[in-house]
């Protein structure tokens, strides 16, 4: 589903990623871990094409990223649900509209959209906050709205960048459980986190990064 081959990414004089090679199969749930600045976010950004690799090749869901036309980028992104580290919620839209946006972009009709948005909000336990604005929500609730938006279109790939960064341990467990449930339905999930407690005893594959280098992998 996702293949990196000798991928490097540089920012001015700084190396964010160096010769990274790995694969994630369809339906897998994989954790990417490492300390802050190890390149976890950059790696996810390369997958949803917020960044382009300087070296190496990447293929995502059959798309060869270096050969892709600019006009095809939205098509690739529609197959990916992203939980951004800074959530990227629109403060001038309520929770319902924030989640619905992912479906509106895909041209889903209003009737179906309503059902799917409420289903997603139910999964993250925010059905009752549909009319609230992000500014009125706690950090954890905002994170769950971002998750609801990432899963609402049932994408084949879900990427989550520090999805439990702003929540208490109990909520973190709940969020990981949610991802596991989604994963059992067939979605491929990549979660970037520096919190080792999050994947302990999950039985999932963990890819380790250290200062932009691949530092091995293990089964949690």
């Amino acid at each position, binding site marked *: 589903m996702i293949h990196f081959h000798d991928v490097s990414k540089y920012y001015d004089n700084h190396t964010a990623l160096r010769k990274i090679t790995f694969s994630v199969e369809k339906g897998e749930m994989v954790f990417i871990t490492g300390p802050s600045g190890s390149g976890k976010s950059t790696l996810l950004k390369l997958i*949803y094409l917020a960044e382009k690799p300087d070296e190496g090749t990447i293929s995502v869901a059959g798309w060869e990223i270096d050969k892709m036309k600019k006009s095809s980028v939205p098509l*690739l*992104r*529609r197959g990916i649900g992203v939980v951004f580290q800074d959530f990227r919620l*629109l403060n*001038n839209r309520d929770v319902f509209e924030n989640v619905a*946006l992912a479906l509106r*972009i*895909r*041209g889903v009709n209003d009737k179906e959209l309503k059902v799917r948005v409420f289903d997603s909000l139910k999964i993250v336990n925010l059905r009752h906050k549909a009319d609230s604005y992000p500014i009125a929500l706690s950090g954890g609730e905002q994170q769950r709205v971002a998750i609801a938006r990432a899963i609402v279109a049932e994408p084949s790939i879900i990427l989550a960048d520090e999805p439990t960064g702003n929540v208490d341990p109990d909520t973190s467990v709940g969020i990981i459980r949610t991802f596991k449930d989604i994963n059992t339905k067939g979605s491929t999930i990549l979660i970037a986190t520096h919190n080792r407690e999050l994947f302990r005893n999950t039985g999932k594959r963990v890819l380790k990064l250290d200062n932009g280098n691949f530092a091995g992998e293990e089964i949690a």
Partner: protein
Amino acid sequence: MAFPYAFRLAAQSLLHEKWINLLSILTIAAGLLFIAITVLSVYNVDVATKKLPEKFSMMLYLKDNLSREEIENIINIVGKKGAIETVKYISKDEALKELKAMLKDTVYVLDGLGENPLFDSIEVKLKNVAVSPETEKRLAVELREIKGVGEIEYGEQFLSSLYSVKVGMKTITILFVIIMSVGMIFVCYSTVKILFYRKNEEIETYKLLGATRRFITAPFIIEGAVIGFSGGLISLIGILLLYYTVILKHSLTIPLFKAIIFPINIALFLPLVGLLIGMTGSAIAIGRIKY
């Protein structure tokens, strides 16, 4: 993208950014109103000058002592020219009679003349389409070659001046309309560009969620169109108010106003012109933005 959603986004933005949008609408309205007044003025001048040819004629003064046959021969030749509508022979006695009628109380100025000093003449009226400085000049040369024809008078300078003024006015109007239109397109262009940059974060999120270029740009094009259309609508209301509350109302006291023609069918196009200006401005703005 579902179009109703693009309209909803455009409506939200119009309300949210109401001051900048209102300013653009009023600027476009003022510009279109100026254009409408200018075009209306030129249209009226054009209509007024089009009526002049009906009163326009050429005078062919005949040489002295021509026989009846020679005069009839000249009338026949002149009448066969394509551009000529009517030919009327005026004998020198009739001309003197007309002159006396014109002079009325001051007819005594003719007392010392003795013999009739006037010439037999032919008054030629041209077809409306033929009244232009070039046709008149060409015709005058042709008529002057007819045996028995002396001087020809046709107000050459007046006609040339009239046509120069008309051409000048039309050119200035076209230039004015172009400059104003470019200005209004620039107003819309700048407004949409500002709005676009203000929503940079939002647009970035749309892109990351997989929005196409059309999904992102459609609300801005709609917004530009609404700004332009509203400006056009206000200018239409302005020109109607100007006509009905100023020109028509005061036409009894100011006779010149009575002669003003108001082509309402053309004025109704103002909102459409505004719409096109708005859409063009926003399309150029969107096209030039790298994202």
